[in-house]
């Protein structure tokens, strides 16, 4: 039987519909949801199917996220739509100081089943306030789980798992990938948080990526293959908790690693991955691990500028050649 193919956007709606059907405590809170189906149309169909459980808010990000938290503390399981990931800046206290810490600082008295769903990423000439990839801000905050899926099946499986998780999850999804299609299992399909996936086997170099970077890594692997370099591609999928076991197994085999992300270089999540590889796998390395990332400037508007700032498949290929000395 042919596998069913749907888009990332359809995978979101399907995951949510299934979870809302399964658990009446699940609801969605955010801007532009009911009439518009979400600013990217990603929730279309849900407001009609679950009246009163897809709730429009004023443009009040602080209170939207905080309200999600308050609801999570009092028996509900909300999913907050951040509209654009960039707007987390308006709710940093609620995410980092409150949601992340409440369970811990109150001695484990409560659970915080809250998903903060945040469409991120560049490539649409949306400029500096609508293009960021901010995952590393949240991997740096103890108490949060951070998920960045790439393919539609991961979107579905991870979103369902995030909704069922009893801890706050920041769930980034690249807005340029909403229309991207792929095979997605129907019905109950869960991917546990904290599991990376080897999506292409190879022996020469490990490409570690997530979100949009995963697709660059896959394309680069195709290109490298033509020149005789077999790249292994790991889609990290969850950054926190990080599946370092899968990374370690691969790097012990290939002895070389390149981390790829769309977020800018300095202080990005790649720095954390490279630090851990250097510290824990030093004896296995044949080359210093490299990072491929955006340049350290705000995302510019004009297409040639944006293209220049973002990393490319060619950068991944070049980095892989460098660590394999070929």
């Amino acid at each position, binding site marked *: 039987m042919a596998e069913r193919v749907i888009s990332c956007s359809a995978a979101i709606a399907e995951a949510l519909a299934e979870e809302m059907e399964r658990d009446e405590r699940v*609801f969605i*809170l955010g801007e532009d949801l009911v009439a518009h189906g979400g600013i990217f149309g990603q929730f279309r169909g849900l407001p009609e199917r679950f009246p*009163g*459980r897809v*709730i429009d*808010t*004023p443009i*009040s990000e*602080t*209170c939207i*996220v*905080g*309200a*999600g*938290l*308050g*609801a*999570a*503390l*009092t*028996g*509900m399981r*909300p999913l907050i739509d951040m509209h654009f990931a960039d707007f987390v800046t308006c709710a940093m*206290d*609620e995410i980092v*100081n*409150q949601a992340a810490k*409440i*369970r*811990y*600082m*109150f*001695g*484990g*008295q*409560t*659970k*915080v089943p809250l998903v903060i769903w945040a469409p991120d990423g560049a490539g649409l000439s949306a400029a500096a306030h609508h293009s960021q990839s901010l995952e590393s801000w949240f991997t740096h905050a*103890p*108490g949060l*789980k951070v998920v960045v899926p790439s393919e539609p099946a991961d979107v579905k499986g991870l979103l369902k798992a995030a909704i069922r*998780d*009893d*801890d706050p999850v920041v769930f980034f999804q690249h807005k340029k990938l909403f229309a991207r299609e792929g095979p997605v299992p129907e019905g109950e399909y869960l991917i546990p948080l904290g599991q990376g996936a080897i999506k292409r086997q190879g022996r020469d170099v490990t490409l570690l990526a997530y979100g949009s970077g995963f697709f660059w890594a896959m394309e680069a692997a195709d290109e490298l293959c033509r020149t005789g370099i077999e790249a292994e591609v790991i889609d990290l999928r969850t950054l926190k908790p990080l599946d370092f076991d899968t990374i370690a197994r691969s790097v012990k085999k290939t002895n070389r690693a390149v981390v790829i992300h769309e977020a800018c270089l300095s202080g990005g999540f790649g720095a954390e991955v490279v630090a851990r590889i250097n510290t824990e796998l030093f004896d296995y390395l044949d080359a210093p691990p490299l990072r491929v990332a955006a340049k350290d400037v705000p995302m510019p508007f004009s297409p040639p500028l944006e293209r220049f700032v973002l990393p490319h498949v060619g950068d991944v290929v070049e980095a892989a050649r460098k660590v394999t000395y070929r």
Partner: protein
Amino acid sequence: MITGTSPEELIRLYRLMVTIRQFETLAGELFAAGKIPGFIHLSIGQEASAVGVCSVLRRDDYLTTTHRGHGHVIAKGGDLKKMIAELMGRRTGYCKGKGGSMHIADFSLGILGANGVVAGGFPIAVGAGLSIKLRRTDQVCACFFGDGAANRGPFHEALNMAAIWKLPILFVCENNCYASTTRVSYACSVTDIASRAGGYNIPGTVVDGNDVLAVREAAAWAVERARRGEGPTLLENKTYRRRGHFEGDPQRYRDPSEVREWEEKNDPLTRYATILRAEEVLTGELEGEIEAQIQAQLREAVRFAEESDYPAPEEALEDLFANP
């Protein structure tokens, strides 16, 4: 003068006010003696607000509080032993020593937590109110905050959101005249913070915050409205912060005579005791009895805390995730 409230209830309120006063006094002493680490913020002189509001809440109602939150926790039924143990950093404390004075919560009593961030409680209270509405119960949420918090963004977002959804929330401003070291008359654009309710189309009421019965009456009205689904209310309990912002605050920003005047002329406990004595609800004998009982309870709480272990250092790594 006092209609519709039984003598037992009147005495219950009195007992809670004395408990808060003595708890705070004791906490100040323990801090001065070096037995409480970090820093603490006391609510001496603000007991009527905590007790008046909480006296009309049910056990299953919610509450969010602030860095100056001991009184609210006690008034909602908090356990004195667990509170003192938490203040002293012991593993038997409310938060196993991970929270301290500024982070006490008791989810079994609907206390969704004290908050170290000024205005941090507003969005959480909105969420509790939304959750009540979605679950179709008749609970309410009391959101305590100070005059300083009324100048932060979350106050405005929360009042608006609670108003448009008619959420069952009591926004309780304890205007104690100072935000940290800054006078409310300097920092706030209006004389009465309650007047800001008009901007959100909800009722706003100025209350004599040192009159426990006035606070109770105003809160009862707001709670009834909220339970009927008529939405939020902003109460402004005018009171006075008699201690520094934190214990040890040199208080260069005010004249000590100002504090003395409030102590002498407008002490919520003295005022209430005077009424109760006039009504012959409180006798000298009962007063002494209550005093002694509370002293004994607090002595027991301190003994409990002092005999409790500190957490083992590695317990710092526990309680981060519910699903690790």
